[in-house]
């Protein structure tokens, strides 16, 4: 039997809905389920209306769902705003805390805070009671919850752990006693030994960077990228990583470039606004040929825009940022798993081509938790392409910018050997000293731009999901993968024939390979989380492939499968 359950927790910022959500998700994961957890929150610390959504299934899920089965309402407005989303589901509330004049039949009352007080002597345990209540409603094995709570609160001491377990159990029991017979859902734990993890895009990026041998991370905090920054900071000691909070984004990228020049694998984390301030230093990486990884968590602009929402609005900016012309590479992870492997790959590409490489993700991807197969370090290689002291000393003369066929010059780092390493933001000669002649300019510019050719061969072709030939092909990039893949599944199950071409390496593009792939495409639509269809334009320019139709969304929210399928039908695409 296939399970596909959607739990929503709504409340104000500061009410702790994130804890309920995390504990629930982890508990469901431990019982063998696939979980997809996503967040909606406002740019404020207290108040307002926020929610978290947990989708649970025994099958792979990579996107969120619109209809809700269980709604945990920590405030009144959670009911008002989400009651319509319930399709036969229930609302869990504490009527002692929330005034409900109108009788809504789907409301299950659990006195969260009274129970918390009674059992654990403190209202602080209210949320834990609620967590237990949900799992009681699902007849879920309580042991998983007890285990997760133990892990979660271990650092606070045994007493706190126990009180949480007690509170949870009381909530659990209350549900069981009062509502179990009414409950439409029942979740038995399944395949318990599967090696699954639940991880956000931000954590996956941080972890990927650590695995790749990141040594220096400089950043100025900016939503939604801060999660990756903090993740690395928390683990920095164990891996000899220096994490430096910069005074501004200009410093952040200049620092990363300085550290990379001196030999440390380096990275910055930011969002579009912060990256705006890095545009000049991007060109510095370009002309000095210093590898650096730039992680951008996109959010809706222009300017401050919607700081906590999602968008894919920075692609063309990233491709064209900074004056002049130089190679760069843009990777756009599809899932958290993808984010992990692509981040590690970004460092290798950066080092091999001595260029800036972008991880271009978005708030939806990086703040959501994905269930993934356990990450395998063995799939990650660390390729530095740096000259050893012996190699340098054996050279007659070391030229940092030696002209080569590939455009890639041998890279030494300063201090390793007696030969000197010279880098310059001015146009320079092979040694690295300033050279303003036209002859030199041409060969140096050509050398740098030649790297794009190698890079194009490096880029993996897009993933194709679904049948080879379809009546309708979705085109997507980055975080739209989950909802698009599911849309394909659902539409095909309903008897249509659709497929998906999905790009997670988006720039530069190998034109011939892609043209070949598209030669089989009948009719296609580009699905993008922006208002103008940026990837469709990039594809056209880079490969000549023209996509005439788009499904766009720029309301700050991610795509859902429901939305995509609706659009397809409404606009009679199939």
């Amino acid at each position: 039997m296939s399970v596909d359950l959607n739990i929503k927790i709504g409340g104000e910022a500061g009410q702790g809905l994130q804890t309920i959500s995390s504990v629930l998700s982890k508990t469901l994961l431990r019982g063998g389920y696939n979980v997809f957890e996503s967040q909606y929150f406002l740019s404020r610390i207290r108040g307002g209306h926020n929610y978290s959504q947990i989708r649970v299934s025994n099958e792979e899920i990579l996107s969120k769902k619109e209809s809700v089965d269980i709604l945990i309402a920590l405030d009144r407005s959670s009911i008002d705003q989400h009651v319509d989303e319930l399709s036969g589901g229930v609302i869990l509330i504490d009527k002692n805390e929330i005034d409900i004049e109108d009788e809504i039949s789907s409301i299950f009352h659990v006195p969260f805070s009274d129970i918390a007080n009674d059992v654990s002597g403190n209202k602080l345990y209210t949320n834990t009671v609620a967590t237990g209540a949900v799992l009681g409603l699902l007849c879920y094995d309580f042991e998983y919850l007890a285990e997760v709570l133990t892990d979660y609160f271990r650092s606070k001491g045994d007493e706190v752990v126990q009180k949480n377990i007690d509170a949870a159990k009381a909530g659990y029991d209350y549900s069981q006693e009062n509502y179990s017979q009414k409950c439409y859902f029942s979740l038995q734990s399944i395949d318990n030994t599967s090696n699954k993890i639940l991880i956000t895009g931000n954590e996956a990026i941080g972890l990927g960077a650590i695995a790749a041998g990141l040594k220096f991370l400089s950043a100025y905090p900016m939503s939604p990228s801060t999660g990756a920054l903090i993740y690395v900071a928390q683990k920095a000691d164990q891996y000899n990583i220096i994490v430096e909070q910069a005074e501004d984004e200009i410093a952040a990228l200049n620092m990363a470039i300085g550290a990379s020049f001196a030999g440390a694998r380096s990275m910055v984390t930011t969002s579009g606004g912060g990256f705006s301030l890095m545009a000049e230093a991007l060109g510095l990486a370009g002309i000095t040929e210093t590898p650096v990884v730039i992680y951008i968590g996109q959010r809706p602009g222009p300017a401050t825009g919607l700081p906590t929402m999602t968008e894919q609005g920075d692609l063309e900016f990233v491709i064209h940022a900074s004056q002049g012309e130089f190679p760069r590479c843009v990777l756009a992870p599809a899932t958290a798993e993808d984010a992990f492997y692509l981040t590690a790959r970004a460092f290798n590409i950066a080092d091999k081509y001595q260029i800036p490489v972008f991880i271009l993700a978005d708030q939806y991807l990086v703040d959501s938790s994905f269930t993934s197969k356990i990450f395998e370090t063995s799939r990650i290689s660390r390729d530095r392409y740096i000259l050893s002291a012996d190699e340098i000393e054996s050279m007659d003369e070391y030229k940092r910018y030696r002209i080569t066929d590939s455009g890639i010059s041998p890279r030494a780092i300063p201090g390793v050997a007696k030969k000197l390493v010279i880098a310059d933001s001015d146009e320079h000669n092979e040694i690295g000293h300033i050279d303003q002649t036209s002859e030199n300019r041409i060969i140096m510019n050509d050398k740098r731009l030649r790297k794009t050719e190698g890079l194009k061969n490096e880029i993996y072709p897009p993933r194709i999901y679904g049948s080879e030939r379809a009546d309708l092909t979705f085109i997507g990039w980055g975080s739209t993968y989950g909802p698009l893949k599911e849309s394909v599944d659902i539409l095909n199950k309903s008897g249509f024939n659709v497929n998906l071409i999905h790009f997670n390496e988006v720039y530069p593009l190998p034109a011939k390979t892609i043209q070949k792939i598209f030669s089989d495409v009948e009719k296609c639509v580009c699905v993008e989380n922006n208002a103008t269809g940026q990837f469709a334009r990039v594809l056209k320019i880079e490969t000549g492939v023209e996509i005439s139709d788009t499904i766009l969304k720029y309301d700050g929210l991610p795509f859902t499968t429901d939305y995509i399928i609706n659009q397809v039908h409404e606009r009679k695409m199939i």
Partner: protein
Amino acid sequence: MTTVKDYSNDVENEWCPGCGNFGILKAIKKALSDLDKMPHEVLMCSGIGQAGKLPHYLKCNIFNGLHGRAIPVATAAKIANHNLTVIAVGGDGDMYGEGGNHFVHNIRRNPDITMIAHDNQIYGLTKGQASPTSDIGMKTKLQPHGVVNSPFNPLSVAISLGCSFVSRGFAGDVDHLSKIIGQAIDHKGFSLVDILQPCVTFNKLNTFKWYRERVYKLEETDHDPYNQTRAFEKALEWGEKIPTGIFYRTDENNSTFKDMRGLTPTPLAYLDEDIDISTLVKEFT
């Protein structure tokens, strides 16, 4: 023994004849060889401007980056490889104007680097606009009625932030200057050397003569460089008399650099450990 000659190369010098920059170049070469540093142990980071070209006229590792951004590059390079002697060099426009925020915040960060500012009180390379340190009243093409903003005081600002080594040299006194630079490099922590540097082409106000008539050496007075308030007062002195030498220093516990967790005895740049993330991955199960 390293000698000044070890630091010489044959790159064509693009400065104007008679420029104060030549004295600074000499003083740096002398300081480095007096300290017996080898060229490959030294990394000079610079920005853009006439001063920013200096590293090219010296044999050493060079990162000549963006206008205003020498300090962040230098700080991070030092973190990546603390075996290197790292010097950030630039003009007054570069270091105090475009790069002002890095100046202020790297004093707080206190990495073990030396910052050398060629303070000619003018934008040289862009042909003579006012710089943050230009004196009030100085006329330029862009300030036809003269500068009205009060000058930026790098020394008083550095002292007010507790910068652990604050000094001023004069490009016209190479020996004195090279001694200051030597001490600055030797100092553990962020050391500032602001240098009075006549720009013979664009600054007709603050000339060699003008400076010579005014400069005096703090070490020849009873100045106590360990007293922050006195240092502050000295830093405000400008006009008839201009102090040079070491204004302020603190010698103890003054490099937060070494407080950085993750900094191993082997420079980060040379680390090549096996990286095992399996325990981290476990945390997500």
